């Protein structure tokens, strides 16, 4: 029974993973990823890691992938063709793929396959239960846990900051103001003005006697490339 379930879910996981990269339609790609994640959750269930399985479904299939589906169904759905990629980009992707394959092959051959002929670790009662995982997260792995949550927090704050600028560009007053970030970060890494092709330029206020309007400032600062 367990073997049948294992092979069913393993085939599901591999099919889903292949589907993610093989399907041309981004919406189907995302759905394949959902199928893959749910298959992984079932594999976790077979390992008696009930909490991890539930977390996998709730967090990945339920929250992260929902966002993907949301975005793709709004803007995606078109057939994404590959001929826009330049030759250098293709070569680089092949090189990175080969490197990743080598790393994974070393890891799998080095450790994972050793367990093939053994019985595996014995099952202890309580293993993988929410209580045990909670204890581990709040004692042994407290620092990584907190760092990860802090990282997610930063990502959330960053997303809100970006999304708040409905107009896309800063006002001239904001462009003129100096902040600590202006000195701490490299160019072309910060503002929305840069993201849409402008440079971070400081101009006099429109009412202060100069004839340069904010619109002109943006047109002036078209990237030379």
């Amino acid at each position, binding site marked *: 029974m367990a073997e049948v379930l294992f092979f069913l879910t393993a085939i599901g996981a591999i099919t889903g993973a292949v589907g993610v990269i093989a399907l041309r339609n981004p919406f189907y790609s995302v759905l394949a990823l*959902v199928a893959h994640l749910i298959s992984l959750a079932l594999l976790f269930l077979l390992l*008696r890691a009930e909490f991890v399985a539930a977390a996998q*479904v*709730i967090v990945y*299939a339920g929250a992260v992938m929902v966002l993907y589906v949301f975005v793709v*169904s709004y803007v995606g759905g078109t057939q994404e063709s590959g001929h826009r990629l330049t030759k250098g980009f293709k070569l680089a992707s092949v090189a990175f793929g080969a490197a990743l394959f080598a790393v994974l092959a070393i890891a799998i051959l080095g450790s994972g396959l050793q367990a093939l002929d053994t019985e595996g670790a014995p099952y202890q009662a309580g293993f993988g239960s*929410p*209580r045990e995982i909670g204890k581990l997260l709040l004692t042994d792995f407290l620092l990584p846990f907190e760092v990860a949550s802090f990282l997610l927090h930063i990502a959330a704050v960053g997303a809100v900051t970006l999304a708040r600028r409905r107009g896309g560009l800063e006002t001239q007053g904001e462009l003129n103001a100096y902040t600590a970030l202006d000195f701490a970060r490299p160019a072309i890494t910060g503002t929305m003005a840069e993201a849409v092709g402008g440079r971070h330029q400081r101009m006099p206020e429109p009412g202060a006697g100069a004839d340069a309007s904010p619109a002109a400032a943006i047109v002036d600062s078209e990237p030379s490339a």
Partner: protein
Amino acid sequence: MSPQLAVVQYYEPWWIQILKAVVIFAIILQLQPILIVGERKLLGRFQGRYGPNRVGPYGLATPLADIIKLATKEQFRPDTSIGWMFALAPVISVLTAVGALAIIPFGDTQDIFGTDVGLYGLDVSIGPLFVFAMGAVAFYGIMLGGFSSGSKYSFLGSMRAAAQLISYEVSQGLALVGVVMTAQTLSLTEIVHAQQGMWYFIPQFLGFLIFLVASFAETNRAPFDLVEADAEIVGGYFTEYGGTRFTSYLFAEYINMCVVSLIMVTVFFGGWLLPFGINPPGWVDPFIVLGKTSFFLIFFIWIRATLPRLRYDQLMSFGWKILLPLATLNTLVTAIILVVTD
């Protein structure tokens, strides 16, 4: 019993497990026609009219007529729809709704045919997380249904569903954390046992209120039924559905209503326990649970007849700016009280 099974306490023989699955499904399935006719009758009374009273005595056979009508309708789908997804989406909705029933405890362990049988499908160590996982997958039933219909109204409905379910799932989950911390367990049967002295809706009243409100949003019931707001987007995600596929969506929605009511009864209202030290024999337990559940089901209908639908921005700001901070505060205060009194 083999030693492997003894370790994980799967003590029930396989035929009992199949029997339980069938019985639980059949009972909840048979509740749905009663629920539907009850809703229509009650809505009628709330609005100063009789409600359905033509088919059968007091109109009680109305759901039967409804089902015959829906089942004999033509299977139709628009030209612009995506066929396999259009057919799959209602199946996902029903599967996840029924799947969530598996962990609801209807009673304590009983002696049936000489074997110990727990009156629940499964007693998993993750408890409510199982229901949330099912709810997470149920989202795809609504989302794919709306997307594959190939119509604007359906698409808008499924987009609303996506935003709404995500927003309120967080508060719903956080509202239960207080209970889990108090009971020191996630297993639903043990949560019920932990309520011997006092039902959790007294110490966790705020948590109960948050869970109640979030449940209305999670089941797409009024006043949070923007997903299928008929005045704005026709029928929302199931605009293009008809016949048995539409019935499946309807069925899933009512089952979900039953599931959240059962969860509320289990987690906040003592499950099969009775107050004042009344201790009835074990076979009464399921009836106690179902009796308490019917109170919440009637409450769902009552609210639908009473409150107007929220606007979309109200829905979002209520979920994120009021419900979520309150749920977090509830968790925090519960944790502090538990640590102080420990």
